[in-house]
């Protein structure tokens, strides 16, 4: 499986995923396709996600949409002004929390017995990875000068 997620200079997000599926699959099986919401999702309000791994488990958890929903709620919980008693989290703290979201969703996949990984970008320009396998072919680049590729943990 291959995929990409991007934030452009206009502030728009996009996600794309493509795969050959699983060796030896039968019976018209399409559970390992990058179904919208499970393996691929993009929403300017939250993030763009592309996934790779045990497709059926990603469907059951709704991984890509679940990550976007949680990030949207995280943003809302920190920025909604009606809760004046609740102090806004520091920028650093929010950034750390964002990494916890894909980690937590992938942990749910693992709990059910599946494995794999996700890439995501946020409207703020973070490019994040999360995977529960020994390796993941991956790369990221940003306008701040980050440019890296990696395979192993």
């Amino acid at each position, binding site marked *: 499986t291959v995929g*990409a997620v991007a934030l452009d200079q206009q502030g728009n997000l996009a996600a794309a995923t493509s795969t*050959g599926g699983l060796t030896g*699959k039968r019976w018209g099986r*399409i559970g390992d396709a990058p179904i919208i919401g499970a393996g691929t999702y993009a929403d300017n309000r939250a993030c763009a996600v592309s996934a790779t791994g045990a497709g059926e488990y990603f469907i059951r958890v709704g991984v890509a949409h679940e990550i976007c929903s949680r990030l949207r709620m995280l943003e809302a919980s920190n920025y909604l002004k009606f809760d004046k008693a609740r102090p806004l989290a520091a920028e650093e703290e929010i950034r750390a929390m964002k990494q916890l979201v894909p980690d937590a969703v992938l942990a749910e996949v693992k709990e059910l017995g599946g494995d794999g990984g996700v890439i995501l*970008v946020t409207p703020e320009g973070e490019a994040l990875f999360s995977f529960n396998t020994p390796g993941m072919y*991956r*790369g990221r680049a940003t306008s701040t000068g980050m*440019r890296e590729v990696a395979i192993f943990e």
Partner: protein
Amino acid sequence: GRWSLAIHGGAGTILRENMTSDQEAEYEAALAAALDAGSSILADGGSALDAVEAVVTRLEDDPKFNAGRGAVFTWDEANELDAAIMDGRTREAGAVTGVTSIKNPILLARAVMMDGRHVFLSGEGAETFANERGIEAVDPSYFRTEKRLEALKRLKERELSALDVDHKYG
């Protein structure tokens, strides 16, 4: 302007001890080239959709990765391809599954999205739609690689039951 890009070429039991340094360098070079293709579009002010399409088409064309040319084989020794794309601005989406002759399935997924009437097309119908939209088709043998065929043969030689073969990985 701020831009950002992340890419992947699959995840799994990828162990350093099973890969030569030359192979590792080849994979890293392929990933870097795909990353640069998408980055240059974003740095020039291009759209996120164009950037992710540029990355994915490049990786689909590279037989090292399990998508497009170099895809794994089904039990019946066919290459069946799937792809999906989504626009975060509008939440428009397009996906295809089980196509066997579309050179770059991600282009077909984007055509499905742009058409707007449907989100998910499959098999023969998706290929008919592709022909109507002028999406490039190839002979299915284009996707075939010996490495992937060997992997299927090894799987079959293990004489697994149907249930074993249909284990939940993809």
